[in-house]
């Protein structure tokens, strides 16, 4: 073989090795959740079960910070339990996520009970039970008809909210949503694209509150505070568990006095057949890792991502470690 051909082969093989090597590296999830050894006496620690290795799970989530953190928590918890886990986070709105679940693209994702009831099953906001246990039972019954199951809910609940800059709220003299009557036609509202079709969002504000807005502009959920800051939006659809609300007094949410924006705890949605395949650790792990998610904790995790700009995966890992589920 000529020396030139040798050089070709050398360069090509180096490239090939680099590519394969990096593929191996890149796909090798930093698996620090693999406990197995029993040197920790805490009952909370997730034990890796070798039976779960053959089960492939894909955890999805919707497209905003809280969802992504939840998805990571569930995914990392399940991995610690020994499952082979992939993620497909940031899917999109609830309809996209549900479609992905039904198609089998994902094994499960976290959903708010209020969203499931109002968006999937056309419940009116006043029919969403305020009691978490009642709401959970109700949504379980609806989901069963679709072959889906919801695992028991998280301690915290979240809801949509109409928010604005505190300075603007004072200027307008509004503290609840119905105060906007007579004023809303001069105010611009910004929200997610799917807000236009949800009863616990624009549709409810239009119909149940009878409010008309100057305009509704759909924007990416990640921009909901940005548009207030930049003065583009008079009103923006926020979430009650948002970190930004707790961090300063800059933003205010209006009280939902007519109960159009119900709160919902988070339930992990999955298919019955996935549960049958995955075994008892599936539900047990999900219930375990979410049991520490009070409103205060969820807000803290949201803050770490949205305000401190930490990586959601790292934030989830820290939460699992601090709670003693992984080490």
């Amino acid at each position, binding site marked *: 073989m000529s020396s030139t051909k040798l050089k070709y082969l050398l360069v090509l093989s180096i490239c090939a090795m680099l*590519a394969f090597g990096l593929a191996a590296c890149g796909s090798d999830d930093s698996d620090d959740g693999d406990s197995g050894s029993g040197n920790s006496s805490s009952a909370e620690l997730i034990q890796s079960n070798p039976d779960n290795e053959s089960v492939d799970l894909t955890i999805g989530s919707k497209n905003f910070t809280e969802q*992504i953190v939840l998805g990571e928590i569930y995914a990392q918890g399940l991995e610690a339990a020994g499952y082979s886990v992939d993620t497909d986070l940031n899917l999109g709105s609830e309809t996209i996520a549900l479609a992905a679940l039904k198609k089998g693209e994902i094994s499960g994702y976290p959903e708010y009970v209020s969203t499931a009831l109002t968006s999937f099953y056309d419940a009116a906001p006043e029919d969403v039970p305020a009691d978490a246990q009642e709401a959970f039972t109700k949504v379980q019954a609806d989901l069963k008809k679709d072959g889906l199951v919801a695992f028991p809910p998280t301690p915290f609940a979240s809801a949509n909210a109409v928010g604005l800059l505190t300075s603007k709220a004072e200027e307008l003299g509004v503290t609840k949503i119905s105060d906007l009557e007579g004023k809303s036609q001069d105010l611009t509202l910004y929200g997610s694209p799917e807000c236009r079709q949800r009863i616990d969002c624009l549709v409810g504000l239009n119909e149940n509150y009878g409010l008309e807005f100057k305009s509704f502009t759909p924007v*990416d959920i990640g921009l909901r505070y940005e548009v207030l800051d930049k003065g583009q939006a008079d009103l923006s659809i926020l979430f009650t568990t948002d970190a930004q609300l707790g961090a300063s007094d800059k933003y205010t949410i209006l009280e939902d006095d007519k109960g159009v924006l119900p709160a919902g705890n988070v339930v992990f949605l999955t298919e019955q057949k996935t549960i049958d395949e995955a075994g008892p650790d599936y539900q047990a792990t999900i219930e375990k890792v979410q049991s520490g998610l009070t409103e205060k904790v969820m807000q803290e995790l949201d803050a770490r991502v949205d305000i401190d*700009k930490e990586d959601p995966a790292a934030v989830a890992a820290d939460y699992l470690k601090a709670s003693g589920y992984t080490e």
Partner: protein
Amino acid sequence: MNELLLPIAEVSGDFFKDRSGGGCIQDNKLFCPGWVADNYDRYVDPTLQHLVLVLSSVAAGFLIAFALAILAHRHRWLSSPFLAGTGILYTIPSISFFFLLLPITGRGQLTAIIALTAFTLQIIFRNITTGLRNVPPNVTEAARGVGLTSQQMLWRVELPLALPEIVAGLRIATVSTVALATLAVFANGGGLGAEIIVGSNITFKTGIIVAGGIAVIMAILFDGLILLAGKLLTPWERAAL
């Protein structure tokens, strides 16, 4: 607000941070070096994924374009259709391509790699073809005179002489692919794009600059590496100086 349904496991009190101090990150200033120093490891995985996307696409693109170019070299009439075909693939925006592939290959790294590969084909194909065509006819005549077969001539004479052009094509393809691979996030293919648009990253100036900066640096490094490899593979060009 709602009933607690499960036994609670508590995180300790110092889990909660005090954010009253404000600071560079909270003000979302254009670039916060302190944050970068503390948080650079969140970019390691995306960068590795990005590397895999780029190397796989360029390698696959090169192999395919090379095969096409050799075929077109033997059968000249093939060059036009191949050029047109790869040209269409080049023209279609990558993000469009991801979603055209969606019904067939679904979401994931493979879809992203296929789309990125398709983009590199025309660049590399065109450069290999041009390089081969620019080999002076007196050289090929001399080679034939010495008794080389077509096969031998291709590998020992024409390709080596076409190397500078091929290397140039590889450089362009690789740099373009590094920039384009940021879009792989739309197909759930990973890469640095996730650090630019997912969740609250979309407003995070420092994060966007870091992610974009890594991509640019990666492009420059690859450009230099390929240039160097090209120089090593063509010692005769240097000797001629």
